[in-house]
């Protein structure tokens, strides 16, 4: 598997990343009933680019994984509550999740060229996944039936509950932050 494809699939292959992208995407889609989804998507792209750039410049190990889980908890809870939020909240969440995801994606290859290719793939994979989830969530949120909308809220509560349990476990083991 090439470095690019490896990077492209990275956000889907790592459960914490997939969970955070799912929760944020559902939140953006749900909130986009009243406004454009563009600002949080652009904010996510900016955060992700900064995180990946920091990783490319060999930044030291961070607690980005824990921040990503905390972001998944917040986004999942907000999806479950399904309350219309100020756009700034969504933008800030998107920047935070994007940056944390980028910082938590160190490429496990030795060659500089392969590492750069993998990081580009990771960025594209994460962005595409988020856009697809947000668009699907937006479509579901617009349906008149209650089942799809409630189904999304249920999935949001599942994401928040799972991420909360992982954070508690890390806290109990003294590994949090």
């Amino acid at each position, binding site marked *: *598997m090439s470095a690019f*494809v*490896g990077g492209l*699939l*990275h956000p*889907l*292959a*790592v*459960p*914490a990343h*997939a*969970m955070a992208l799912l929760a944020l995407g559902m939140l953006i889609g749900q909130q986009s009933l009243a406004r454009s989804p563009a600002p949080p998507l652009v904010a996510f792209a900016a955060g992700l680019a900064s995180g990946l750039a920091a990783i490319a410049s060999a930044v030291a190990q961070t607690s980005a994984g824990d921040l990503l*889980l905390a972001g998944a908890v917040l986004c999942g*809870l907000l999806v*479950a509550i399904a309350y219309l939020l100020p756009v700034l909240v969504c933008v800030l969440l998107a920047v935070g999740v994007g940056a944390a995801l980028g910082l938590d*994606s*160190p*490429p*496990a290859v030795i060659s500089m060229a392969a590492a750069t290719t993998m990081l580009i793939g990771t960025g594209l994979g994460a962005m595409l996944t988020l856009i697809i989830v947000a668009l699907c969530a937006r479509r579901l949120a617009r349906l008149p039936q*209650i089942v799809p909308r*409630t189904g999304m*809220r*249920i999935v*949001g*509560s*599942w*994401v*928040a*509950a*799972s*991420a*909360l*349990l*992982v954070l*508690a*476990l*890390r*806290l*109990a083991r003294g590994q949090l932050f």
Partner: protein
Amino acid sequence: MTRSRKPASIVGAVLLLLAVACAPAFAHTGSASGGFAGGFAHPLFGPDHVVAMVAVGLWGAFLGAPAIWLLPIVFPLVMAFGGIIGILGVPLPGVEIGIAVSAIVLGLMVALAARPPLWIAAVLVGAFAIFHGYAHGGELPAGADAVAYFVGFVVATGMLHLTGIAFGLLARWPAGRIAVRAAGGAIALAGVAFLSGAG
């Protein structure tokens, strides 16, 4: 007008194959499949957990809207709270008894077709959720990926709720109502058996 769905199916199949063929080692430990499968199987092999979760769904279906949709959203979050206090080692007395009593009470609620105010139902179910989360939430096998494991655990619990809701929807018909109430009675009896084992 009919549209061919073939291209979309082919793209989906290719993406699925790529995802399966991918080796997600990179800088992370653990795998989604092993942890998820373990977490998903965990609640399914605990009969006390299974009957209580199904009873929650059955009762939700009896209570109707908004309880039917509210319980599957609230329950995982309250259960996670129970899991957190279990993981952090905060003592909670009578956990096994609480789980057995949850099957008895929830089963009886279904059997008697009880319709208390929503807040009473929510408090009751929430209290039992803490016991279930406490008992099962912290049981992470060594070496399993924590994120995938807990996702599997929560999803399996949610699916048990949805199974209960689906079965409970039979209560719209007279014969189905009898079947659902009988299932509630069976769950309450199972709870009595759990209680005799827990004591």
